């Protein structure tokens, strides 16, 4: 079973004050740490587990610059067999462009299954996986929380709202977008990442893919970024923990809870 996993490196934004840059179309990223997109971490783990059970290979693909190779090496350390990075140069990437680039690469790699995360933690758009499926002519399913492979098909759980799943059967080849929580991604040590350095990491320049300007024209663009409008928001309680706790208990009781 040959699996391709498309992944992305994103800035770590929890507990960080984001600063909008002068152009107002992006944030200042120089001081930010970067990580593998959370959803993609689960997608890699799922691919590696499927390979470990059913044999085959796992290829990870990302579109990005040299620094983005960090997540490819991480994926290789998790058990992927080879990695591909497409260097987009200075192109502006939206889901349309990204899926076009990925499609031209993934179609050259044998695959029974293509996995992506449900969405990326930076733009939160959630379109690349299903766009890629459409471009490759693959049947697909999104927000997948369980995969049970049965010969040439898989029984899938798709997460809906309110704790409800839809269960369905899909035939390979297929593309699935993976939801967090589907598995427990393995721990990767720095040593593991170093060892994975011996595995193949291929770099493709955008120009080699033969894409036209129309293929690389973003469909949507950010006109302006801005901070959330000042809402009334929470009344902030300050003081030492003891005083805060006292105030909180008073509020909880006032709201009709017996504590």
């Amino acid at each position, binding site marked *: 079973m040959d699996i391709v996993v498309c992944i992305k490196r994103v800035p770590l*934004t929890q507990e960080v004050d984001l600063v909008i840059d002068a152009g107002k179309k992006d944030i200042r990223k120089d001081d930010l740490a970067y990580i593998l997109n959370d959803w993609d971490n689960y997608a890699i783990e799922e691919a590696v587990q499927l390979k470990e059970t059913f044999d085959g290979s796992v290829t990870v693909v990302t579109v990005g610059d040299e620094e983005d190779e960090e997540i490819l090496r991480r994926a290789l350390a998790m058990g992927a067999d080879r990695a591909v990075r497409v260097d987009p140069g200075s192109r502006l990437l939206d889901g349309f462009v990204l*899926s076009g680039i990925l499609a031209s690469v993934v179609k050259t790699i044998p695959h029974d299954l293509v996995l992506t995360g449900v969405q990326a933690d930076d733009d939160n758009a*959630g379109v690349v996986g299903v766009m890629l499926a*459409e471009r490759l002519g693959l049947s697909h399913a999104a927000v997948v929380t369980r995969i049970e492979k049965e010969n040439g098909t898989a029984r899938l759980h798709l997460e809906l709202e309110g704790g*409800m799943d839809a*269960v369905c*059967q899909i035939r390979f080849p297929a593309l699935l977008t993976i939801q967090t929580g589907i598995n427990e991604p393995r721990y990767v040590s720095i040593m593991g990442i170093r060892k994975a350095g011996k595995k193949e990491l291929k770099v493709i320049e955008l120009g080699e893919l033969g894409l036209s300007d129309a293929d690389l024209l973003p469909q949507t663009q950010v006109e302006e970024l801005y901070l959330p409008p000042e809402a009334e928001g929470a009344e902030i309680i300050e003081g030492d923990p003891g005083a805060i*706790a*006292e105030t909180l208990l008073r509020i909880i009781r006032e709201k009709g809870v017996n504590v």
Partner: protein
Amino acid sequence: MSDIYVVAEHRQGELRDITFEMLTKARALCEAGGHSLTAVLLADEAGALLPPLAERADKILFFQDARLKVFDPDLYRDVLAHAIGQGKPLLILMGHTPSGLEYVPALSIRTGLPIATDCVDIQLEGSKPKLTRQIYSGKLFARVVCRDADSYLITVRPSAFQPEESAPVQAEVVQQPLPGGVGEPRRTFIEYEDTSAGAVDIAQAPFLVSIGRGVGEEENISVIQELAEKLGATLSCSRPVVDKNWLPRYHQVGTSGKSVKPKVYLALGISGAFQHVAGIAGAGTVIAINKDKKAPIFRVADYGVVEDLFKIAEALKEKIKA
């Protein structure tokens, strides 16, 4: 005058809330710009689906076929590509929901039309939409524009718009069979499964102590569990805690978990992703404790504490004892 389409989302014979939210927003856009509102319904039978749509739309495009008994992304893509090609609507609004995520991006590639997803506001400047999205988990807002096109695909965030009653209209219903060239679905629906049933019903609890990613380690759960017991509260959590298997799914609050309506919701180390916030809309009072003063949860909480959650948890335990 152009059309604004709203694709009705429904499951098991009932329209989903998002349908009414989109119809409300679409009606406002229609009134402001002199457009006409068309609801697009794909279903095996009209049942209870048609009447509420007929009261809110000027026209209903009703594609009826046995194959539409359950949602299938290939069918939605094909039928909507056909409908858009025929009707050339200015905007097509669809839910940014698990179902929407399954067909709208494919529809964009199939039709070549630009797409903006998860929009929390939609403005029309002439025939050009300006969309508001949230990025970086809600820490920033982005105003987004699409390249020029005849039609624009927009997915709408659930709960971004409040459904409102408007003067009822009686829509003209245009019933159509599936267009030619629509293939058989490539995947087979088997069943729905409720994964949230369990020992604790957080939906009924009057006081919830809820934990998020900020709890850090699995070992720390017991600290909060103990606090919840001391306070006589029920323990709940946000998605990352369930993803890590630290608590069973029936504890999860949010769009993919349960909606709750406690008198008091004490959120510990929860950042406040919109999927979570949607689940606590019914809470009486929300108190948030988080180290990150910019965490979106503080925008929806009534009271906030910017502090290490364990310090406050310990202090609360002490005060309860006293």
